């Protein structure tokens, strides 16, 4: 909800009284921000969304602006458009637009923003997604059809051009809600299943599930990874239900559930390689899952043309990187079977601060090879990958968001040599997207 500022007669009357105070009080921090020290050198074909923590210490404001990745000077938010003053969760780009999803403060919605070459951003539509509770990552099929799930037994079909919901997919037939799994403790039951991410391959939707035994603590409810297969050919995008389109639910106990609500600003956890294989990151990272599951973060695979996990493929990410006990988050795929992931260093967690796990820089960026099952460290510096991990790749470089010790910047990674450099600093946690 935006308000416009309108002058009024009482305001003018009041201004007479307060003029002295105004004269005394006007300062640099009055609501007319001046140009910051680092204006972009030139506007490019990229959108950057930054997130800044507010004074209450818990809400974040989000800002959108057009930038050039060739820029090397600090880019502040003084010429950015405020997407949200207090909440935000995920950002996706599609068709030159930015889709800003929010489920903070129990107000789930999705906004579509366009930004022109003059850096003017306009709200092109919005959609109330209250029925999803906390929505997962969005999958865009084309300009007329996209899918998004959440804590619901319905997946929403919507038109990303008009931002109107057009239909639903009822996944109740494969839901395990109410099933006693005795995990993570005897008697535990699946109380909710969230569709955290959807990947489109061929004519199928692969919707990952996060079964939970307790929502408040986000405790897992299933010892394994579950994905629902949905036949898009049987979906009427303009109809509700579409239950017949649900093909099956597949399960693999070697990895944990995949996906995470809004992790890193909307990082993906399932990726499709050039061969048509789907790689699934079972990160085991959140909410004590690592301890409950007692298995390493791993990659599972659904081979091209198949709809089941490939039993012969299992990539132990922890052993390949920092060693067992260091979970790996993020699956920023950059081609040829390689991706950037953030490996956690448990020794970097401050034992005296119960929030250290969430607020301290405890991750290091690594490059993983899905085919050879190897890993190589990219940067020794620690970052907060949980709040910033959506990475943009172009021309052999990766532009990785980095946040540590009060400093936020975009780290440029040479994907051939894995050499890194600080590309430009930002004021706020950065997320870069192509506008092409």
């Amino acid at each position, binding site marked *: *909800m935006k*308000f*416009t*500022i*309108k002058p*009024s007669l*009482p*305001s003018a009357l*009041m201004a007479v*009284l*307060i003029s002295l*105070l105004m004269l*005394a*009080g006007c300062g640099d*921090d*009055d*609501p*007319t921000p001046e140009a910051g020290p680092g204006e972009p050198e030139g506007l490019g074909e990229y959108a950057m969304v*930054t997130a*800044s*923590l*507010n*004074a*209450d*210490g*818990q809400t974040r404001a989000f*800002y959108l602006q057009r930038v050039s990745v060739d820029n090397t000077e600090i880019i*502040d*938010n*003084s010429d*950015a*458009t*405020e997407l949200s*003053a*207090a909440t935000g969760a995920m950002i996706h780009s599609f068709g030159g637009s930015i889709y800003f999803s929010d489920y903070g*403060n*129990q107000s789930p919605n999705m906004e579509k923003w366009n930004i022109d070459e003059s850096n003017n951003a306009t709200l092109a539509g919005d*959609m*109330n997604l*209250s*029925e999803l*509770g906390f929505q997962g990552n969005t999958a865009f099929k084309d300009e007329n059809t996209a899918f998004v799930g959440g*804590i*619901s037994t319905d997946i929403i079909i919507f038109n990303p051009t008009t931002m109107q*919901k057009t239909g639903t997919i009822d996944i109740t037939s494969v839901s395990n809600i109410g099933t006693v799994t005795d995990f993570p403790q005897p008697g535990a039951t699946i*109380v909710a299943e969230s569709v955290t991410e959807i990947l489109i391959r061929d004519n199928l939707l692969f919707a990952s599930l996060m079964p939970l*035994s*307790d*929502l*408040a*603590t*986000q405790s897992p409810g299933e010892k394994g990874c579950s994905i629902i297969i949905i036949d898009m050919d049987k979906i009427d995008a303009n109809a509700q239900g579409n239950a017949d389109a649900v093909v099956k639910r597949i399960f693999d106990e070697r990895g944990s559930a995949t996906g995470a609500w809004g992790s890193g600003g909307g990082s993906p956890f399932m990726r499709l390689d050039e061969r048509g294989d789907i790689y699934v990151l079972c990160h085991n990272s959140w909410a004590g899952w690592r301890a409950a599951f007692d298995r390493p973060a791993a990659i599972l695979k659904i081979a091209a043309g198949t709809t089941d996990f490939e039993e012969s493929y299992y990539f132990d990410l922890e052993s390949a990187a920092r060693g067992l006990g260091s979970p790996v988050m993020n699956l920023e795929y950059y081609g040829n079977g390689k991706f950037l992931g953030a490996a956690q260093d448990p020794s970097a967690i401050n034992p005296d*601060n*119960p*929030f250290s796990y*969430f607020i301290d820089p405890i991750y290091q960026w690594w490059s993983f090879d899905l085919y050879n099952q190897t890993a190589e460290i990219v940067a020794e510096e620690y970052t907060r990958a949980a709040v910033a991990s959506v990475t943009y790749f172009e021309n052999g470089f990766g532009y990785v968001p980095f946040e540590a010790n*009060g400093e*936020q910047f975009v780290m440029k990674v040479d994907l051939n040599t894995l050499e890194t450099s600080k590309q430009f600093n930002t*004021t*706020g946690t950065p997320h870069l997207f192509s506008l092409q």
Partner: protein
Amino acid sequence: MTIKKSLNSRLTVNSVLKVAFGFFLTAILNPSLAETNQCRVTLTILDERQNEIIGAFIEITEADQKAISNVSGEANFLLSQGTTYTLYVSSLGFETVQRSIKIPTDGDFQLQIILKESTTSLDEVVISGKSQRATTKALPYKAQVVNLSTLRAQPIQVTNILNQLPGVRIRQEGGAGSSANIMLNGIDGKGVKLFVDGIPVYLLGAGYSLNTISPGMIEHIEIYKGTIPVDYGSDALGGVINVVSRYGNAEYADLSYGYGSWNTHEASITVRENFGSRDNYFINLDGFYNYSDNDYWMDNVDIVVDDLFNTEPGRARRFNDQFQSLLTRVQVGVRDQRWADELMLMSSYSRIDREWQHGLRAEVPWGEPTSTQDSWNAAVSWKKYGKSDRWNASVVAGYTYDQLHFVDTARRTYFWDQNFVPKTNGGESGLYSNGTIPVLTTRTLFSRESFSYSLNNQHTLNLTMLLTNDELRIRNDVLSREDQEGLLPAQTLLKNYTGLALASELLGSKLTNTVSAKHFYTRSSGVTFNNRLVGPRETNEFSIVGYGDVIQYQINPLITINLGYEFTVRQPDDEEIFGNYLTVAPNPSLNPEQSHNINFGTEYSTSRKRFNAGATFFYRNTSDRIFLNAVTFGLARYENLIGTQAVGAELHADYLILGGLRAAVNATYQDITLQETSPQGNIPNRFIGARVPNTPYLFGNGQLSYSRKAAWLGDGTISAGYDFNYVHEFFLSWAEDGRAETKDIIPTQTLHNINLSWMAPRDRWSIGVECRNLTDARAFDNFSVQRPGRSFYIKARLFFGT
């Protein structure tokens, strides 16, 4: 189950009114009210031009009776026949009168007191803040005092009254009964403490909060900003609001009932009765009942337009926001004994039932959460004044039981038009599996002792102590006992406050000074909580000393200056230390919030007191401010997150134009900036020096009132008033980020209110009407949380007695 349904069988507006009316009839028909061994004394306070003086302070020391003259300049007392008393009358701008009066042995007694205009006195913004006995030295603490005796005819709420004062800004989260956040000179939240008769309100129960308490049981309200007298034995960081109950020995019954928009009912009853051979025993009964549907319109909210739950912006009524509060209080005591000037037993019960329409923001409504809060309190107080009021002592001790029961289990997601979608998990207010039914029970023991001693005519010592012990138990009825094991034992929080002050009058009373020291001690004992696992019990304690000095100097009879400094702290409360072990983790190592406060003010008044104006400049440097730090949806705890600095000024002017026509205006500017950040919170250092967002920084009020006796209407008093309330727009997020025209703001708002009331002679009855938000402006205190539009209220009041 809604409140309305749940209460129909127990408590309705009608049933409450029937009980109240019955009680009222019993009270007024009781012959003891008309006993004749006491004489009804009516004093009328006038100036030399025979104009009534409103707000004059009258004290009769031998009877320990005090009163403030009402809109007719009158004050009433019940005194023993044939006895001689000493009378003190004081009023700002007038010389104090001391006079001996002998009460006749039969009939009522009326007396006019003429005050001469003073050439040495001081005007205050509203009314001078002398709430102590007249013998208390004139303290330099700058208080604003709002006398409600002249406002009782109006259907006005206490929060609205306070919102019209300079430097005060109250932000509410909705309509009637919604929680109120008070800001005084740049410090808000728990840094501002509310007292009732000098007792911290949290010790008395939820029914006494500002958003529920009835104006009918209040004599006046005192507001102290920044520098706070030691009498208020608590850890207020930015200021104190002290609600003073109606006092005096007069016997009367006061009954009022109001009705207004959104099906709002407000009823109150106050009865004072003396008994015994010398009428030195008394019983006071107070009660009020508030109810509102709060179903006012919300604009620009999402309305469902099809069965896919697509939405369009539209208008909808609030639908889960019913509010009801009830409070009863009885005081029984004895006066004028050798061993006590007053000994009183008191007990109160309050209950608040409310529905919860939304959280801090209103984008998504909640359709079913409700809460019930029951509080019961019992206390005893003792007061004794020494000979010639050389010393006085008072003790209050009591016990309070409070239980808050919140229910949120609906498996539905609501939209503003009351459409809903079924969902698999329960609860709307957060992320829960089966909802949440927390039950918070607090048992509090407290004692407050205050002792004042005049060393000589110039110096007075005051010692005040307050000891509280909270025992907090939390359970959640949706969780199994096993899941809460370790939480069930009580957590305890012991706080002790000791304040010592020396007040001095020097230079022929032109200079007054108070130097004070305060000691704060806290000891907490509770379980630890890490990674959602209950750990061993842990005890923590800290001790800290605050200090301050305030000085007032009268430059000449027209101008006075005031300077004060105080270093003060706010001790973390049980919610902040213990959390709720469910979504808010405990943090026993929280530091107290600390603040260095400076006030500098000056007041000017014309010699005939028709015009007065003043300015106050304030500075607050506050560190270790405590905020809830929510790092995930399910895990949060209170942290010392930031330090801030507030620099500001408030101006006020008051002009008695002619007769009963008065105009007043005030404005406040405050610049609150970030000064330090904590590594616990990740707030970037680049914002140091920036204005703290989501906080009003420029606001003001204007009032125009007219009041006069109307002989053509039976010599009653007719009053009319207009006021407006202005708040300048402010950003929700840091001003440094984002182009101004794209940022979310709380827009500039100007609300206009008008009222009209008629008060019968001798205040026997009155009726008043009020229109709030006359222009039906869209009003917001918090983002997206709309306040009520134009609304109308009417209130009738009956008064029996003297």
